[in-house]
């Protein structure tokens, strides 16, 4: 067992974990943050996307120990109390999800992208989200929702 210290959704976490634990397993099973979903376990679907120091990361292909000392944000940490993030509001307004299984990862990828981009084009958004699979929506409303977010 190894010591792990990191920040998850603003809270300092100390834990003892076995070294092969993935970040996804640590978040989902150990901390009970079930928002990020396992869709493939191979980093190919994006359902488990979280942010590590702001960057979108597929949590199923990174070890928890690799984020030692870093700040992790999951879908559960995106809203400010009762106030949803503008990306979450945009997804609700546009109906940019159906079954919702890819949604946490999609929103975190969208959020990470929007925080870095300035006045993105549709092409930029499509490239940024091309690693996140969705079977329900054909991405149409996801792209529209992401483009609609007013970047302050």
């Amino acid at each position, binding site marked *: 067992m190894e010591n792990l210290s990191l920040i998850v959704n603003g809270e300092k976490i100390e834990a003892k974990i076995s070294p092969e634990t993935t970040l996804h397993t640590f978040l989902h099973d150990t901390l009970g943050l079930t928002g990020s*979903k396992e869709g493939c376990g191979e980093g*190919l679907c994006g359902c488990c996307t979280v942010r590590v120091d702001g960057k979108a990361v597929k949590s199923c292909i990174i070890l928890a120990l690799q984020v030692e000392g870093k700040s992790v944000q999951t879908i559960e940490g*995106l809203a400010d109390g009762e106030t949803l993030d503008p990306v*979450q509001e945009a997804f*609700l307004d546009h109906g940019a999800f159906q079954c919702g299984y890819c*949604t946490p990862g999609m929103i975190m990828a969208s959020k990470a992208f929007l925080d870095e981009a300035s006045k993105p084009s549709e092409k930029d958004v499509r490239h940024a989200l091309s690693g996140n699979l969705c079977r329900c929506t054909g991405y149409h409303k996801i*792209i529209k929702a992401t483009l609609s977010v007013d970047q302050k």
Partner: protein
Amino acid sequence: METNNEYKYIGTSERNVNGVEKVTGAAQYCSDMELSRMLYGKVKRSPYPHARIISIDTSKAKELPGVKVVIVGDEETCPSRFGAGVADEYVLARGKALYVGDAVAAVAAETEEIAQEAVDLIEVEYEELTPVFDGDEAFSRNPPAILHEELKSYKTIRSVPPRFDENRPNVFNYFRIRRDNTEEAFKNADIVLENRFEVAMIHHVQMEPHCGIAKVDGTGRLTVWGTTSKPYGMHRDISESRGMEPSSVRVIIPTHVGGSFGGREPKAEQIASSLVLAQKGYPKRPVKMRFTREEQLTTTTTRARYIVEIKTGAKKDGTLVATKMKTILVGGAYAGTGYLTARNGSFGPAANYKTPTFSMDAYGVYTNQRMAGAFRGFGNAETLWGMESHMDMLAEELNIDPLKLRLMNCTDEGDLNAFQEKMHSVGAKECLHAAARDIEWGKKTEQKAPHLKLGKGIALGNKYSIVPTASACFVKVHPDGLVELRTSTVELGQGSNTIFSQMISEEFKVPVSKVRVLNPDTDITPFDLGTASSRSTFNMGNAIRKACADAKKQLFDLAAKELGVTEDVLETAESRVFVKGSPEKSMHVSELFIPMVIGGYTLKEGAEIIGKATYYLPGVMPDPETGASERPASFYMFVAQAAEVEVDIETGKIRVTKMVTANDCGKAINPMMVEGQQDGGVLSMGIGSALLEEVITDNGVMLNPQFADYKLPTTLDCPDCDNYKSAIIETAHREGPWGAKGVGEGTMVSSAPAIANAIYDAIGIRFHDIPITPEQVLTALKEKNQESLG
């Protein structure tokens, strides 16, 4: 986005009522559920496509620390076969393994890792048998392999019985239509055209892998949570396969299920149940069976390879005089819902055009592959792939514009279809006009470079909805005015919870926030046929309206006594009951409930205000020889789609540059959600099935069981937002709730032919199989060039 509307809640794009949970990560799926002292299951699977099981040695697996249960397919664990229409499957294979991945044993252990280790320690001795994969070979009178020697002795369902073929031992269902004499009509046709088409096997790829959790209480009662779309189907499968009393099984589906698209046969749930029941004594520990992505892609149901032969006769002016078809659903080792898909894939071609003579022979055959069954469109995307490619070829032969040929032959209100049923609520023409308008039919787009060839294509389609059919529900009025719906419709992402809420809002004149929809639970929510066949809006919608009327009657009977009026003068809105025209004579719903001394509320009589209703539509079973029926389906959803493609003749790459769809849903209860169905059907599954997706196998082994190789459309494979249009056509159905029919399944039935017709327009090459890949394009272009040189 809003459509013409005279209602307050119906026809509005309400936000998804489960949306906040979904965008905040609060939504819990079956795979997120944990119970105390839970065990985790893994499955031992056959490496052979067809093999006799000689022996299974589980001794090493049982000795592994942490292993609690090991089961194999035997009389004790798997006493009876089950199946949607043909009871041909055991929970774990007995006697023979029939596909690569067939479950032969299962383990439950303290962790998934231990369970997997134990599975690897199970030793199975097989005797390999000759397999059959090819549809034509499996269909033949002397197939290389017969999968179910005892087929004729299997139990079959009575309501829509399968029909076997005396001479073809792998046929698990045969359905025929004979409308008048096609052979005579062909003689009188000016042009007769014949073609054969196929589609590849594809997978639904629901984002949540299949999952089941089972537990048994101290009385032996089994409770199962799962990801299925048919709670009562799963309830039957589980009780039947074990000979349990139906009342001793409870099925619960969580509020959130990660997609279905027809592919949620409850296998994980079945195995989890077996692993719990096999534990000796009490207490038994709950078991979770969560399939990996690879297990989902290699062992759960697929859309079958489908063979479609079509022959049509037409007059010079384009009038269709005869259509003759033969289709083979190249099914898997077990019929599953494929038994019905094989039959009902004929409905689309039967209703698309007003052909005076029509003949159809539709078969489903067993092969040594995993089960093939329901997939969005239920056989009709496959049969219409053939028919709508063929129609373009006919248009070319006749030198008639493909749009015009469709407009002059498509069915319309009052026309007879091939079942000789008088069609009602037919939006075919409106859909065709809308699709033609949105793709700018007839207008050439300027080519960007000489090697980038552009073309446009159009296709018509329809999707029926099943009969016999039934939905039941309860509508309860709570003391605080909240109205609760108890329904077994599964919220799979399609938005049923939201549109049902809107329906109740409309009936009770309360905001959607004052409505709640419970998740399916066979102890609480009554029978529903299943969340399939685009049937929920129509069937459950009708049940909801009737149950609301019942609940309101109870409410008014109680309130009439309090207000000193007769119940027929009352109405309700905003949780109040009042006298029509005299709103000052009113009371809040809560005033009917008396607060009690220790707590809670009571009515003076009648226990609770609970409306209940069943919507039952038996339909008329088609005549076994002619298919004739006055009501073979509950309704038809029409769709027209058009595509513009750009084919790079240097690389063979096809890009869908523009895609439009027009869907006749009767009435859009929630236009935003209708669009959502259109978007997913066209952009993900339509484009995917036409250009990208294929389950590639070698000797029954899937070669591409990961997302790296099974190509789902990504954001980059879909046309830009401005180049995609979805039109909602509302051809009200006289029996639909507010005129509504359905939408989901009709959304991909004409995508592939529209795209292929556009490819033909671009490069003059007709493809008979999908997916159409760059390799195929390059090969075909090379052949074409050689022909023109030769």
